[in-house]
């Protein structure tokens, strides 16, 4: 296999809080190849966004990486780069699309200025050239009347158009990796489909790798080739999309999939996963999902399960892998 574009090894993010250190991301490892789309799935607070921000080395105040964590882009070790070098990578090689386009665009700058600025921060382009590239990119992501829209302010555009502008901003410099943090969550359903189309078209056009962060399993099925399911700061299951949907192995994955509404089965009520994610300052001993798991037994309270390879591209963190007979129907 060729060298991966992005390798994340043993990513640990800790926050110092009043109640002690919060291990928000705990030993997350994965690789991403050029042209591939990897989805990070999980409920709020499980560490998806922090994982993404770590890749850009943009952790919020108070958060820090463990010294053993390694984030490698091609052959550059991002955790060791100087701030100036990192700035050269952000926006040029790794770009990010934010969840709420209205909030992620500066309300007092024109759309075109915000895009042109990214070009000017990374290249020697003149003001005019940068503006032209911005307008051209807006056209490419399907913004109608791009020259006019570029001269407008974010509040003059709809949410869908703003998200297209964000995508255009991310794609301006042909990055090898785009991190999309819940790119469709803030949008109407019809607009969601359009935005996914834009992302798919751009991926096919430029061969970029996409790290897709979402809790929407529909979006995952649309775009991703591989899925990592995160729970309580850990990877609990990693599998190719088709395999994951057909035979989810971790009870949490199974629960997530069961909670997706479908039209072909008539149900009174959608099944849910009882309880909430435990606090990051006090992960329980043993399996972190234990309290919410229908299959849990004594071993789960004592022994923390390891991420185990069950098939070539399929890893699961659950004792059921060793003792499948414990699985309840």
């Amino acid at each position: 296999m060729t060298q991966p574009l992005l390798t994340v090894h043993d990513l640990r993010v800790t926050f110092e809080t009043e109640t002690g250190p919060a291990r928000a991301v705990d030993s997350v490892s994965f690789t991403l190849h050029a042209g591939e789309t990897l989805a990070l799935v999980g409920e709020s607070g499980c560490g998806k966004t922090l994982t993404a921000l770590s890749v850009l080395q943009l952790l919020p105040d108070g958060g820090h990486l463990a010294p053993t964590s390694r984030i490698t882009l091609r052959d550059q070790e991002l955790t060791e780069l100087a701030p100036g070098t990192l700035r050269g990578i952000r926006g040029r090689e790794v770009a990010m699309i934010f969840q709420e386009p209205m909030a992620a665009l500066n309300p007092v700058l024109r759309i075109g200025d915000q895009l042109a600025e990214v070009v000017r921060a990374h290249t020697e382009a003149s003001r005019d050239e940068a503006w032209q590239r911005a307008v051209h990119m807006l056209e490419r992501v399907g913004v109608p009347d791009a020259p006019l829209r570029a001269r407008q302010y974010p509040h003059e555009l709809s949410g869908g158009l703003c998200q297209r502008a964000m995508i255009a901003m991310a794609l301006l410099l042909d990055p090898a990796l785009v991190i999309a943090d819940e790119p469709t969550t803030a949008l109407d359903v019809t607009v969601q489909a359009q935005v996914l189309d834009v992302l798919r078209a751009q991926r096919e056009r430029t061969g970029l790798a996409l790290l897709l962060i979402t809790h929407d399993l529909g979006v995952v099925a649309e775009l991703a080739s591989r899925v990592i399911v995160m729970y309580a700061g850990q990877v609990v299951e990693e599998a190719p999309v088709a395999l994951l949907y057909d035979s989810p192995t971790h009870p949490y994955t199974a629960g997530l999939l069961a909670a997706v509404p479908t039209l072909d089965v008539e149900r009174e009520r959608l099944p849910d996963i009882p309880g909430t994610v435990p606090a990051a300052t006090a992960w329980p001993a043993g399996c972190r999902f234990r309290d919410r798991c229908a299959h849990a037994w004594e071993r789960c309270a004592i022994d923390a399960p390891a991420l185990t390879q069950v098939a070539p591209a399929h890893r699961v963190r659950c004792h059921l892998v060793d003792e499948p007979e414990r699985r309840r129907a």
Partner: protein
Amino acid sequence: MMHSASRTTTLAVPRAMRRPRDRALHVPLVAVVLLASIAVAAPWLAPVPPNQIPSDGLITASSPTMAHPFGTDPLGRDVLSRVLYGARVSLGVGTLSVALAVGFGGVIGAVAGFMGGVVDTVLMRLVDVLLAIPRLLLLLVVTALWESLPLSGLIVLLGLTGWYDVARLVRADVRALCGRDFVAAARAAGASPARVLWRHLVPHLQPTLLVLGTLGLANAIVLEASLSFLGLGVQPPQASWGSILGDGYVPGGRRWWLTLFPGIAVVSSVLTCNALADALRRRFDGRQVGV
């Protein structure tokens, strides 16, 4: 720029509905332009040079007459001309010192808010200390050190004692802005700290700076008048509203015209500035601008 400061979409409001709000802004705006024009046009408006002492020997204060509508001061100088010329000093000193205060306070506040940590703590505690010193008292002490303080010195003094509030509020604005998504997005797009601060944050500070500057102007006009009244501001024979007031405050009879006319000038310009600041603040209603 004003509209886009609000995050929500501005709906088209019929013109008639906007009127009352706009009038509150336009009246003081026109008044400010008028006051500024008077200051600029003083040489053409004034009937006689402001420091001219009559050659016919009437070196005494006289109440308003047809020849001197605002009367004359104890040296026989025309008060109308002196009030007109005084506008140049009062408004000029006020404007320049406020520009200095807003610039200096803006930079200090932006740096403190943006850098955070130790820099923020040190700068803001410094502001706390400086705020504890009464401004007029400090000005009195410092101006008393000079035998004759040049006008530029007065401007610098007023500027250097007027930036504390600006720094505090700008710092609060910058802290709040740093948490907004677009700042994270700018960083993620590879913007350097200087670029984030200058391109993404500074444009948001305009409402705060504009309102504080206008309020500061009212303050500076009063302070300049106070100092000049006490003889610590402009040096004779230069006319400022405060020094004309001072000329009227001498033993030996009431000279109401020496109090009334420069008094009206001070009060009207201060009220105008306050009204303008208030209207601007309302205009930027979506944004919280502290006073």
